[in-house]
């Protein structure tokens, strides 16, 4: 018996650092993945980035003619405008809607309805983006043509609405968590002072939960910026700086998805698509970074 215990003891002493190492690796794997992805994406585009691409033209020209025979132009301004316009429109719809729903679920509805709503909202989040795209392509398209009497329904408006519907579940569930985290004693204190429900919400809950609510909104933005399939199917995919919600637009993500398969591996076109990938990556990085700064700023002030 004693020897067995001894063996285990020995084994444990030998195993402990190994297990610790594995756990440490799990912990820092996120960093490795982020840098790894950045590195490999950048490596594919590097050849053109340093050899031939005019960065200023790339960022400021709306001319995207990567397959032109005698005058190839790689300007992504229209694509950036497409991504931003669709995202902005989506947020204009999704933020009030999502935060309103979060407030309703957290503060107003009874326990039974709450459970049902949460399940349905999670279900909404689980719908694959291609299905959303399909809805946009058929239902929304017809609806927009009918309602606004425009020739095509595959527009910035269509993409924005679909993206809004896709972002709302995230905003609702993260926003509801943020509101739930506000101690009930704050609500009780305000109510006992005579605050109405609405006053409790905008004078106590919203200021207290603002960090979490901001995080909810920015996660929604992140989803909208990165979404590919649904916007590819719903925005009309026309390279154009939009002047109204009824213009067709094309986003950065959709461009990569649509063209990568056709571009010859190693060609300038192929490489520029990877540079767009780096650009997307940078946009999301900046959004996240700014969020962190804002939240930290709020925290220090408070």
């Amino acid at each position: 018996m004693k020897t067995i215990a001894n063996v285990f003891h020995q084994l444990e002493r030998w195993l402990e650092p190994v297990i610790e190492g594995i756990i440490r690796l799990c912990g820092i794997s996120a960093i490795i993945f982020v840098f790894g992805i950045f590195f490999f994406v950048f490596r594919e585009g590097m050849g053109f980035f340093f050899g031939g691409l005019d960065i200023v033209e790339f960022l400021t020209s709306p001319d995207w003619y990567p397959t032109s025979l005698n005058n190839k132009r790689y300007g992504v301004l229209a694509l950036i405008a497409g991504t931003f316009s669709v995202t902005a429109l989506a947020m204009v719809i999704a933020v009030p809607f999502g935060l309103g729903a979060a407030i309703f679920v957290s503060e107003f509805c009874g326990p039974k309805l709450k459970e049902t709503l949460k399940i349905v909202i999670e279900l909404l989040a689980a719908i694959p983006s291609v299905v959303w795209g399909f809805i946009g392509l058929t239902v929304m398209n017809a609806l927009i043509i009918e309602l606004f009497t425009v020739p095509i329904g595959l527009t910035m408006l269509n993409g924005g609405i679909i993206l809004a519907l896709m972002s709302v579940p995230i905003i609702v569930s993260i926003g509801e968590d943020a509101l739930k985290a506000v101690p009930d004693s704050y609500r009780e204190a305000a109510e006992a002072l005579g605050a109405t429900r609405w006053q409790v919400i905008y004078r106590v809950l919203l200021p207290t939960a603002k960090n979490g609510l901001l995080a909810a909104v920015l996660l929604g933005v992140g989803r909208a910026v990165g979404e590919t399939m649904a916007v590819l199917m719903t925005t009309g995919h026309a390279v154009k700086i939009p002047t109204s919600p009824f213009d067709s637009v094309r986003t950065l993500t959709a461009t990569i998805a649509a063209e990568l398969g056709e571009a010859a591996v190693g060609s300038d076109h192929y490489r520029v698509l990877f540079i767009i990938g780096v650009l997307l990556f940078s946009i999301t990085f900046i959004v996240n970074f700014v969020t962190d700064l804002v939240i930290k700023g709020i925290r220090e002030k408070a």
Partner: protein
Amino acid sequence: MSADKRYSIETSQLNLWYADFQALINVSVKIVDGLITGLIGPSGCGKTTLLRCFNRVNERYGNVTTIGEVQILGKNIYDSDVSLPELRKNVGMVFQRPNPLPISVYENIIFGLRIHSEQRRRKKSQTDEIVEAALREVFLWDDLKDQLKVKATTLQLEQQQKLCIARLLPLKPRVILMDEPCSTLDAKGTRAVEELMLELAGHYTILIVTHNMAQARRVSDECIFMLLGEIVEHTRTEDLFLMPKSTKTADYIEGRYG
């Protein structure tokens, strides 16, 4: 006792249920205006429930049924035309755990005024005066006059609880309900809050729920002993502790159950 006593709270045949559980049974009491009335009794006897009836904060939990009348300042607060904000403006409440809002000391005190008159713009000098007066009334002004911008939730517990009392005062309440206001405070904090209560009595009708019988003796003018949802005895504090009429009261104050 003189016959022309004025009552700020009068209940008659008050019954209350949490779902199927009856927490208050035929409670009829009269709380004298301007005095401190203590509510004592073992855990679960309904004293906090009774207290929370008086500003209807019980109703936050959905499954509460209340039957009976509660007259506060001559009006039945369970009438359908009663405005809850107005009621709660007149009947302030101090909770067991100090619960200042996570905003500055200054904003905590002015919070009540802000929610009760949204539109009216106040001059800064005017609100400054209100804040100073409220803090002076609870003996916090000297401690906090340089910390008005500090977040209230970072203060010491004793200061937080006094602040919770101070923020009721700008609304000029008639009644202040206190639910074991000293249970999270140390001896020094307890003494300070008790002194404050004695100072406020007269200007306000104070109702205090307490587990601490010594505290009830120290601060209250009248005392109500409750057991299993019913009022057993309600009389002057000296009489309740020195010559209780009911053997149940005697058993409780002698510590035979609790």
